[in-house]
């Protein structure tokens, strides 16, 4: 590199997009450079004379600009802490720190380049063949291979980048904002359709942007019409990434403020694919040398950025694009020393190098020309991705030497532009306009009457590979030699060849290399390209950040009305399903002993709560619970367990009878939504004739459990219209009354903790008030608030199981020790046949109380009980009980071990085995329930 910064910037170009008055300073591999506003990273580097911009993934070969567009596999950079940035697309910003990926220690001297010397050993399938045995070394191989992989580095300490997504519902979505796409968008919009026009580049115009004066004028005129049209929404620097059933289309927007990328989920009535054409590389020896560029890369660099990509150029072309590139180069003062037009004969043999960059070209007539730029225009690939995703199979157009859309196109998907054919600008615009009208007709009234003019590829030379071997897949360093060797080994179908050699599987995903891969294979097999066929394109069309796919998290967090109190009184939160609730207020064991000896209150608002109304509620209860409900009197509550049709327990809770046709059901905190769906399912699909209405009142009530020997005394201070005495309001009953002046509160005498307790459900708006009033009046009793942990300890002391903790996805009713509850003499209930069979066979684990023989040992939950080398059970819940001053557990064990007094070996996660004894009851505390009933 020599001369002043930006010296290879040529004379002004009519279509140039850089602002020569505004410079940008950036860093590349530790060195400071200057570019212009409007530059891409690559145009700025090229303007600074930087020719080697990266090293290839596998052989670490020096690489320069090749296709010069988003897909260029040689132009991936680390930018600040963002890896894999597409340097030929990303615009330069002030202060950008750009570095080459996949080099060690530097781009100039890269030790990985030793792979190049080993390349004859690193042939196709090398990894498969080499890193197979011994299996125990796989983790080591993985680590080594990962270091050789080419991607950038994700900063582990990087800041969290938020993501977002949104929806759109246009009539017509046009993918591609070139002349055909703009023309289609305008005619669809003129026909009355709402149109979403999506363009991958920063500006509409497609290939017209790097065209001649006339072409620029057409582009400008179309752009103005599009911008002025009220029915067209245009997105630039956005890309259609995929198309799914019924035109569900994913669009990725880039370059937005704050977010890195944003996903738009588009449901469009019709889709027009107008992606244009992608120029394909030509395969010959030296085709990946820095200095060998495709004609469109040169046209972009020269005509958009006024950059001179070299000083002395040779052009090898099979079409007019190469001629246009030669003209553009001359206009900025590049010496074009030779143009070889393959249409008039002449072939390219090899490119030669000096110091790792292009130094000359050899032609088939034996002539050698010195140059630092070789422009190649070999032909085009039609990216039929969106059509493939719509079920269309591309067919090979032999005359045009490219794959084109097949005839079996979905009737809501259309194609125009280079995807379909070649023509003059007028012909392209006419086809686009006709297709736009068709798409609008289909979107708006269903039948298509417009006829599109004939449009097909112009004849083109089949320029895929020359007489020498070269790189086919630049992303993966797969050469035509590798492909031929693989075909020779028997991988002679295109799908097998692709997987074996990894050709087309790199970041370019086949856009540049598929056609050449197929052509090489066809020659190896001695068959036509049509016979060989092509691989299937899959979404996404371009890589998408995971953040864009994830979008913003819409997971709601739920709080009880008392949460602010908890947080200001030392409550330590725990995430419990959707709810945030206090785990404890500093000392769970102390909370337990206070409840056991005095009184405490816990916020149980997350309990699922439903009001059931109608004449047939008891029928529904009999159906969904395993026990009987017909005789539940008004004012009484009952515990129930719900099983699925497979007999597996899925929820439990207490339901009370409020009045003749009104019931109040409570469910587990995490089960509320599932229970609601379950009940509705049976009502809607099974028994639509039943008169039952279910109202979810989970958050309409704040729920508080007042527990402890002094709970009645406390509550009676605040309740005057309900007699709380044991005689008037016995265990397992409910009353509705006024608490602290708040009417309409439900009071239930139930107890999960094992103490005398009242569960109260008060209108949510009064929750915090009632809570504070209870705390105030409880001060004389030494009241404590208690959290989930104290409740879990006390319920374990009492032996109550928790669905999902002490049961799992296969725990049937009789495994949970609720034999007394399951009424097999009921006519029918959900899961009855399976429960009957379990009852008869005695199969399945059994839930038992287990006391570790060493009372200080608390085995970790999920510790296995292993005997004779097989799992015979496991600990499902374990805690140290402050009340009993020992460790206590519940566990599921095989029936043979579910006998009181059996000693079982419990294997802790660290391998230590401790002994535990199976107890007679689940409850370790007040098995008789005297305290509850007091």
């Amino acid at each position: 590199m020599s001369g002043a910064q930006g010296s290879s910037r040529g004379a002004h170009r009519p279509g140039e997009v850089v602002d020569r008055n505004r410079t940008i300073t950036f860093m590349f591999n530790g060195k400071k450079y200057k570019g212009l506003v409007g530059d891409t990273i690559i145009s700025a580097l090229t303007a600074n004379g930087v020719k080697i911009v990266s090293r290839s993934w596998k052989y670490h070969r020096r690489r320069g600009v090749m296709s010069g567009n988003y897909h260029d596999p040689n132009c991936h950079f680390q930018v600040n802490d963002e890896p894999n940035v597409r340097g030929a697309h990303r615009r330069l910003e002030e202060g950008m720190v750009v570095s080459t990926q996949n080099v060690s220690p530097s781009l100039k001297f890269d030790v990985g380049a030793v792979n190049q010397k080993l390349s004859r050993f690193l042939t196709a399938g090398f990894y498969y063949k080499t890193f197979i045995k011994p299996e125990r070394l796989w983790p080591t191989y993985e680590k080594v291979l990962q270091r050789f992989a080419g991607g950038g580095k994700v900063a582990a300490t990087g800041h969290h980048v938020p993501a977002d997504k949104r929806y759109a519902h246009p009539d017509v979505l046009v993918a591609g904002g070139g002349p055909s796409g703009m023309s289609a968008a305008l005619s669809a919009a003129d026909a009355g359709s709402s149109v979403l026009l999506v363009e991958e580049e920063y500006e509409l115009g497609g290939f017209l942007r790097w065209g001649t004066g006339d072409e620029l004028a057409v582009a400008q005129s179309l752009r103005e019409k599009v911008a002025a049209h009220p029915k067209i929404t245009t997105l630039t620097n956005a890309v259609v990434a995929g198309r799914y059933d019924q035109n569900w289309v994913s669009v990725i927007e880039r370059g937005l403020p704050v977010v890195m990328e944003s996903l738009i989920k588009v449901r469009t009535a019709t889709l027009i694919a107008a992606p244009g054409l992608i120029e394909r590389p030509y395969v010959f020896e030296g085709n990946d040398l820095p200095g060998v560029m495709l004609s469109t890369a040169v046209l972009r660099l020269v005509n958009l950025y006024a950059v001179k990509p070299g000083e002395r150029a040779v052009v090898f072309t099979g079409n007019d694009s190469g001629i246009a590139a030669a003209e553009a180069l001359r206009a900025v003062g590049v010496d074009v020393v030779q143009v070889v037009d393959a249409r008039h004969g002449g072939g390219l043999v090899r490119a030669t190098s000096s110091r790792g960059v292009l130094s000359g070209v050899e032609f088939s007539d034996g002539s050698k020309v010195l140059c630092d730029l070789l422009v190649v225009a070999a032909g085009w690939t039609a990216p039929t991705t969106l059509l493939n995703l719509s079920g269309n199979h591309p067919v090979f157009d032999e005359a045009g030497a490219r794959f084109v859309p097949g005839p079996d196109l979905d009737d809501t998907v259309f194609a125009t532009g280079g995807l379909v054919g070649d023509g003059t600008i007028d012909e392209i615009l006419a086809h686009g306009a006709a297709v736009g009208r068709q798409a609008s007709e289909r979107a708006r009234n269903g039948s298509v009457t417009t006829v599109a003019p004939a449009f097909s590829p112009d004849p083109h030379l089949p320029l895929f590979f020359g007489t020498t071997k070269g790189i086919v897949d630049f992303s993966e360093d797969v050469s035509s030699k590798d492909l031929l060797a693989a075909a020779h080994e028997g991988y002679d179908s295109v799908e097998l060849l692709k997987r074996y050699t990894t050709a087309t599987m790199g970041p370019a995903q086949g856009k540049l290399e598929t056609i050449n891969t197929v052509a090489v294979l066809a020659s190896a097999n001695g068959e036509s390209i049509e016979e060989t066929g092509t691989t299937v394109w899959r979404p996404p069309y371009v890589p998408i950040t995971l953040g864009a796919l994830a979008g913003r998290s819409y997971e709601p967090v739920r709080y009880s009305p008392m949460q602010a109190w908890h947080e200001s009184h030392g409550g330590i939160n725990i995430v419990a399903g959707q709810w945030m609730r206090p785990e404890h207020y500093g000392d769970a064991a102390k909370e337990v002993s206070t409840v056991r000896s005095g009184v405490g209150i816990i916020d149980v608002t997350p309990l699922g709560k439903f009001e059931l109304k109608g004449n047939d509620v008891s029928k529904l209860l009999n159906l969904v619970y395993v026990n009987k409900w017909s005789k539940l009197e008004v004012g009484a509550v009952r515990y129930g367990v719900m099983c699925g049709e497979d007999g597996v327990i899925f929820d439990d809770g207490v339901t009370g009878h409020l009045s003749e046709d009104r019931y109040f059901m409570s469910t587990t905190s995490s089960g509320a939504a599932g229970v609601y769906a379950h009940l509705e399912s049976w009502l809607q699909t099974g028994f639509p004739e039943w008169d039952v209405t279910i109202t979810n009142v989970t958050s309409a009530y704040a729920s508080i459990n007042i527990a402890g020997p002094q709970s009645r005394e406390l509550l009676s201070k605040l309740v005057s219209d309900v007699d709380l005495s044991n005689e008037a309001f016995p265990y397992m009953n409910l009353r509705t009354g006024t608490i602290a002046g708040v009417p309409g509160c439900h009071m239930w005498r139930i107890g999960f903790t094992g103490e005398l307790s009242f569960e109260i459900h008060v209108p949510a708006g009064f929750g915090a008030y009632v809570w504070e009033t209870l705390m105030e009046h409880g001060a004389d009793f030494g009241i404590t608030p208690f959290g989930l942990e104290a409740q879990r300890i006390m319920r374990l002391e009492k032996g109550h199981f928790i669905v999902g903790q002490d049961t799992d996805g296969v725990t049937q009713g009789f495994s949970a020790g609720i034999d007394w509850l399951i009424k097999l003499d009921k006519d029918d209930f959900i899961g009855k046949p399976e429960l009957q069979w379990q009852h008869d066979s005695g199969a399945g684990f059994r839930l038992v109380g287990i006391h570790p023989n060493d009372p200080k040992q608390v085995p970790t939950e999920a510790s296995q009980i292993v005997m004779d080398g097989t799992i015979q059970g496991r600990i499902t819940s374990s805690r140290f009980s402050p009340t009993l001053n020992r460790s206590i557990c519940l566990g599921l064990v095989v029936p043979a071990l579910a006998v009181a007094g059996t000693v079982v070996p419990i294997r802790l996660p660290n391998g230590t085995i401790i002994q535990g004894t199976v107890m007679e009851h689940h409850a370790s505390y007040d098995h008789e329930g005297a305290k509850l009933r007091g």
Partner: protein
Amino acid sequence: MILIPCPNCGPRNSSEFTYEGENKERPNAATATKAQWRNYLYLKNNPLGWTTETWYHSSGCKKFLVAERHTMTNEIRSTKALGHQGGAS
């Protein structure tokens, strides 16, 4: 993501629905054999072609609906709401 025409809400993305599975007749619990019952629980016909299935509009009107869907093309031929339409909720 396919569109499902909800009888209450119109065409909505399938992500709003919970798939309840193929419609199957529940055997008589009193007389069903294990084979019949487990066929009901676990075995799906999973045809290549038209199938009748239930969807729950869990993120919408919370109604269950029956749809006839072609498993290869995802075309939905008809949907109908089920009898129970809830109450005042």
